[in-house]
């Protein structure tokens, strides 16, 4: 009997994880949704890391060093045009690595309003960035204070403020994109091992690698805890009871963690672990890796020189 075609076909596209919609989202639902989303995202990342693409084919150590160089030089850059060019380049490399551009952009910009936006948004007003007004919003008059801040006579959005906020946001977006690109194109175990190249001790590499695996096990534990609660409660409980329940489940997970680490330790000992960490070194840098490394290092150096006004653009 031959294997049917649909069975032998390997689909490396990220699978969709759907969470049930509708209904009130209480803390139980939110927790379960969070875990499900976590699994979905890690599955997606893994499928990208296994695709045949440009960055997937490079040595992880080279990629790590290159991306770090880019991130550091981007953090020094304050010219919005240069930042835009770097961001476009990162997008281009994402495309060449066969990562869906929409998925990639969504992944990066999802967090930015939450963390960066909160910091960047107030900068556009003249309270924080004095300058030429674009839009006048209010005129509270002189002498008004907001906490420790003395408010100016008029509140307005300034051109300089918008510029500073845009540069700030774009810089964060570019660095985050570069790092997202690194982990989307690198298998996790390889990524951790590549940390050796920047001098991380072996024991930390092993701890990270094991930690990564156990995160998934604990995620399942949490999903099951919340699912069990969801399926066994038929009415809302008091806030105090809910809090007690959450506290006890975290405590239970902590007990389980320590118990499991004991068992894992015994299992490792019985397989010959003596506390001496050995890692297999299965990296091999080829010619193309050296080319890539020199290209990114040169590019980063150029960015640094531009940011220090040594090269004018």
């Amino acid at each position, binding site marked *: 009997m031959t294997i049917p075609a649909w069975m032998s076909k390997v689909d490396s596209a990220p699978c969709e994880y759907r969470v049930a919609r509708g209904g009130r989202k209480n*803390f139980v639902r*939110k*927790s379960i949704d*969070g*875990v499900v989303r*976590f699994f979905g*995202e890690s599955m997606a*990342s893994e499928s990208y890391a296994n695709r045949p693409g440009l960055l997937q084919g490079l040595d992880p150590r080279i990629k790590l060093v290159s991306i770090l160089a880019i*991130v*550091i030089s981007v*953090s020094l850059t304050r010219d919005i045009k240069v930042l835009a060019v770097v961001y476009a380049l990162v997008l281009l490399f994402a495309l060449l690595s066969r990562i869906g551009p929409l998925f990639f952009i969504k992944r990066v910009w999802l*967090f930015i309003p939450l963390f960066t936006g909160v910091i960047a948004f107030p*900068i556009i007003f003249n309270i*924080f*960035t004095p300058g030429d007004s674009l839009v006048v919003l209010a005129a509270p008059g002189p002498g008004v204070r907001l*906490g*420790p*801040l003395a408010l100016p006579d008029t509140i307005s959005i300034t051109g300089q403020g918008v510029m*500073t906020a845009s540069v700030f946001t774009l810089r*964060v977006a570019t*660095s*985050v994109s570069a*790092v997202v690109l690194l*982990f989307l194109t690198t298998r996790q175990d390889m990524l951790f091992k590549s940390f050796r190249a920047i001098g991380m*001790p072996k*024991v*930390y590499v*092993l*701890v*990270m690698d*094991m*930690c*990564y695996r*156990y*995160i998934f*096990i*604990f*995620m399942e534990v*949490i999903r099951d805890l919340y699912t069990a609660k969801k399926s066994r409660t038929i009415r809302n409980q008091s806030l105090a009871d809910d*809090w007690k329940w*959450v506290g*006890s*489940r*975290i*405590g*239970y*997970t*902590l*007990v389980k*963690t*320590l118990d499991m*680490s*004991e068992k*894992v*330790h015994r299992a490792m*000992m*019985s397989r010959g672990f*003596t*506390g001496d960490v050995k890692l297999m070194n299965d990296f091999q840098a080829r010619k193309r890796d050296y080319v890539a490394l020199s290209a990114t290092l040169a590019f980063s150096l150029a960015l640094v020189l531009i940011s220090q*006004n040594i090269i004018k653009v």
Partner: protein
Amino acid sequence: MLPIWAYAGYKLNRELKSKQVPLLALAAAFSFVIMMFNAPIPGGSTGHAVGAAIIAIVLGPWAAVVSISVALIIQAFVFGDGGITAIGANCFNMAVVMPFVAYILYKVISGKSPIGSVRRLAAVAIAAYVSLSVAAGFTGFEFGLQPYLHTDANGNPMYMPYGFEVAVPAMLIEHVFGFSILEAIISMLIFAYLQRTDQSLLMGTSGLKVNKEPQKAAPAV
């Protein structure tokens, strides 16, 4: 941050031996997933704990330094929360300041009271509350420091535009009246659960000191 990590590694190496790898790995995984435990907040929203205080109290501060750092690094690199250049500051606030403040406060306040006592429970709550607030204050301070350290040629700030007078109160207020209260209550409830179920974990023997007794050789079969 590097010397602290190096010292933590040295300290753990001496005291934990081969047991450190699985213990730290699983503790780090626990530090990572603790944020998945949502709790309801009056008003229909939800929140979660940071957990650094309870980890420091149960495992000891040095194990907390390593496991929380690992959790933060994995979060930054593998799950794209960004913040690669800020990882040193991040780890300092959440993996050093918070566990140590919590651990010292807990030790001082609980004194020699019995493990199951209410006094220890109060010590945990205060330790969690103060440690998160202090960590937030440190973060605000680091934010506030930035405009003084990094400015461009025109005197405009490069990274954070806010000085101390904005950054420190902004970070402190939301924590002192919000997140820290949640952290204190949840840490206390976790501790109460451990008091009821497994007091041996709270004797200070589950983390660092567990292997001070000589390692028992596996029975030869």
